[in-house]
């Protein structure tokens, strides 16, 4: 039963992606030791810096060799490795139901989020789940296989309904996620970029590392229809009758403007943004995502 519900997890894909670690791009404040940088100095093998001794410092951390060479007391600091708290924010508004049955935008988001959750859990990170919908689901990040099971089960049960509450949900999440975390947003982002920017900045203000998977179908970009049609809003709005031959050009201009504003948002907020087209293999998207997050040693 559990296996059916978690069918969005593909063992083969998981096996391949296990080789790629999930890194946070910013220092994390984990509860336990882990693979990720912490803003506090710790006792890992990774040298961080020297600093002058001040009274009260633990004398065990004095670098005696430096004292021997320079007759001055220096404290040798090492990076503190901690675990990652990954919060998966999945948009569950009606528009996430776009696409054929079994291959909707939400299904795609579920695959991405589920796989990431699994990968994170496997490397000892805490996983939380937030659904961005009228009936919010909030599962704080925790570690452990049991918790992962809970997250995956909840993830399997979400349905795309109602209007979008993405912006309020992001603000809400920014307030409620207690510690620094990797916030992964999976949404179609059909909101004004200027308003989205505000929500993102709120998250950034809370020191969260933000990754954003912008899920769009190619048809939503190209508006490639040949006949007039009645377009019914999947989020319960009114129907719009449109003749693509008359409107397609302006539609594409609107998309272009939107994407330019998104670029600006990405540029100014520094989020890890990924435009994902639903026809892409999610495994490739995740590979791109994971590889993009591997820290550059030189730059560290």
């Amino acid at each position, binding site marked *: 039963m559990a296996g059916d519900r978690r069918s969005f997890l593909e063992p083969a894909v998981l096996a391949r992606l296990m080789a790629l670690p999930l890194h946070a791009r910013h220092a994390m404040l984990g509860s336990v030791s882990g693979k990720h940088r912490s803003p506090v100095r710790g006792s890992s093998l990774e040298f961080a810096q020297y600093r002058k001794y001040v009274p009260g410092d633990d004398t065990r951390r004095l670098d005696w060799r430096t004292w021997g060479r320079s007759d001055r007391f220096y404290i040798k600091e090492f990076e503190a490795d901690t675990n990652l708290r990954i919060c998966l924010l999945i948009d569950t508004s009606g528009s996430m139901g776009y696409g054929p049955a079994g291959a909707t935008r939400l299904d795609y988001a579920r695959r991405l989020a589920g796989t990431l959750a699994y990968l994170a859990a496997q490397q000892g990170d805490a996983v939380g789940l937030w659904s961005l919908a009228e009936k919010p689901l909030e599962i704080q990040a925790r570690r452990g296989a049991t918790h992962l099971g809970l997250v995956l089960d909840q993830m399997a049960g979400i349905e795309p309904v109602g209007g979008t509450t993405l912006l309020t949900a992001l603000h809400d999440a920014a307030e409620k996620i207690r510690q620094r975390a990797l916030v992964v947003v999976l949404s179609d982002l059909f909101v004004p970029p200027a308003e989205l920017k505000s929500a993102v900045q709120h998250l950034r203000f809370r020191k969260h590392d933000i990754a954003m998977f912008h899920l769009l*179908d190619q048809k939503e970009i190209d508006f490639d229809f040949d006949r007039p049609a*009645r377009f019914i*809003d999947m989020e319960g*709005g009114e129907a719009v009758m449109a*003749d693509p031959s008359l409107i397609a*050009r302006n*539609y*594409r201009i609107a998309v272009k403007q*939107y994407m330019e504003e998104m670029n600006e948002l990405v540029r100014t907020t520094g989020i890890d943004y990924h*435009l994902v087209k639903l026809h892409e293999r999610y495994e490739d998207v995740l590979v791109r995502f994971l590889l993009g997050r591997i820290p550059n040693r030189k730059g560290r």
Partner: protein
Amino acid sequence: MTFLQPALLAALPLAALPVVIHLIHLYRRRQVKWAAMMFLRMAQRMNKGLSRLRQILILALRVLAVAAIIFVVTRPLAGGWLGLTGGAPDTVLVLLDRSASMEQKNTATGVSKRAAGLSNLAKAIKDAVGTRSRLVLIDSALGKPVDLGKADDLTSLPQTEATDTEADMPGLMQAALDYITTNKSGRTDVWVLSDLQQSDWEPSDGRWGTLRSAFLTMQGVRFHLLCYPQPAQDDLGVTIDHVTRHETSDKAELQLDLRITRHVDKPQPLEVPLRFVINGVATTMKVTIKENDLVMQALSIPISKTVKRGWGRVELPDDAWAGNNVFYFVFDEPPAMHSAIVSDDEAESGPLNAALSAAADPSRKYVTTLLSARRAAEIPWEDTALIVWQAPLPKPGDAIARQLSDHVAAGRTILFLPPESPDNTRIFGLGWASWKDESHDKPRNVEWWRNDSDLLANTRDGSALQVGSLEISRFCGIEGDGVPLARVAGGLGPLLMRSLDRGGNVYFLGTLPGPGSSSLARDGVVMFALLHRALNEGATSLGKAQQRFASANALGADPSKWKPVEQKASLPLRAGVVASGDNLIALNRPPGEDQPQVLSMPALDELFAGLDFHVLTNTLEDGHTLTNEVWRTFLLAMAVALLGEALLCMPGKREVPVVKSSMGAAAEK
């Protein structure tokens, strides 16, 4: 704008079909569940004004295209600038009715139907075809095709001037058919300009059927009938039936049978001055016309006893139709009233001889020649006004048949009586059936006779002839097409019939005057009146002073020997008096021209049934130009509308999606 197929205009609501289809399409278009409504709404906001305008334009062009198709099939006709856009035929054939009645004028402008029609026609032809088509005129008076250099010639040629003739419209159509056949005129537009007077069109004429059949076999011949059927307002006309000179011991006078007519719905008494000009001397009298007809029998106009012969005219004041305000006449000492009776039956010829020899007019001499059938060739053809033929009908082609035909053609009269043994021979379109012997039964009476004109008309004082009291014991049926003048009771058929042969005074009487057949001889009066009226009809063409109707052939083969007594041009087509030596001829409009009856539109439709024709009914007040078929214009409009619609529907240039680069840029960050 008028239409050749106006019924198809009922399909015009179909022009709204694109709108209906659009609305149906709007409500039945497929539904797409769509998530990116944000972009769609933005696009709609951007597109709103132009898009709606474009959509409205597309719909309007589609409606225009369908309407144009409908207009094309209804075959519109238009004048003016729109008419210029029509195509030009190879030949434009103008058939002009130059009959006297075409001179009826609009009293406000003084323009006649003929002049107005010609002017309109010239302008229309100039506008519509210019000099692209060959232009040919055939007029009713001369019947000869005339090539016209330009449309304006229609208003200036002598062949289009006024006449006092009648128009033989079937003959005119035949001339058009001959022209088209002989000259292979290609696509031909035949314009007929006429007032639709029934006497000119003769819808019962057998030639119409033949003409229609012939035109039906032709491709590309279209008829445009420009009609002026409206009668002249408050028009008075005058005619003179008989003019005789009477002389007594103390005075001489002319006796005229004069008729003044008008055609108004509610006639009011009207006093009109009547001016007589006799040998250049004018006298005027006033008469009051109370009804639509004023008949003045034997109106006496005193003349000098020394005036034995001469000419004159009677005139009414000018009105809407000047042509029927004048009637010319000539007079002379009356010739002897010669008649001939051809009969082998003395019992029958006796009463006839007695009646014809008796003088109806004491001032004239009556001579009757009695001949047997074998001696019929001895008839004094030159002097005889009436032949009473009671013998077997001559076979067609016989010399005597030709002589009889010439006799009738010269304006003389023949009265045929049934022979004892009738056969199936026909002459002048009529023949004898068999005798119906009613002697054992009660004799039949005459149940109906025509008392307004012809041989059995009422007398001058208006009292009827006692035709109804005639008793018919033996009756011989009359076969063929003719005008019945009297009918025997009991459905036995016509007793007296006039042949329809044009211009001839040929009568068939279905009984004999003898006591074994009828009471004609016994009562005498009816027979006397009948015979002397027939004699008088024939006598009008006797003598040196004759009344004739204006026509191209009115003065015979050599009209140049005739000179007008007044300075009037265009004789013999115009009314007037001409002289040649001692002979005088008064030319007048034919009586049919005074008839107000016009061809009804259904009758006209029947005459042109199956042909490509349309009728333009103008009034004299119309200043409109005439029309040309302009379906090509609508076809062009349709093509332009469809082209415009296609251009508006053409999808814009497909832009290379910019999303990829944006996305890439975003992703790189």
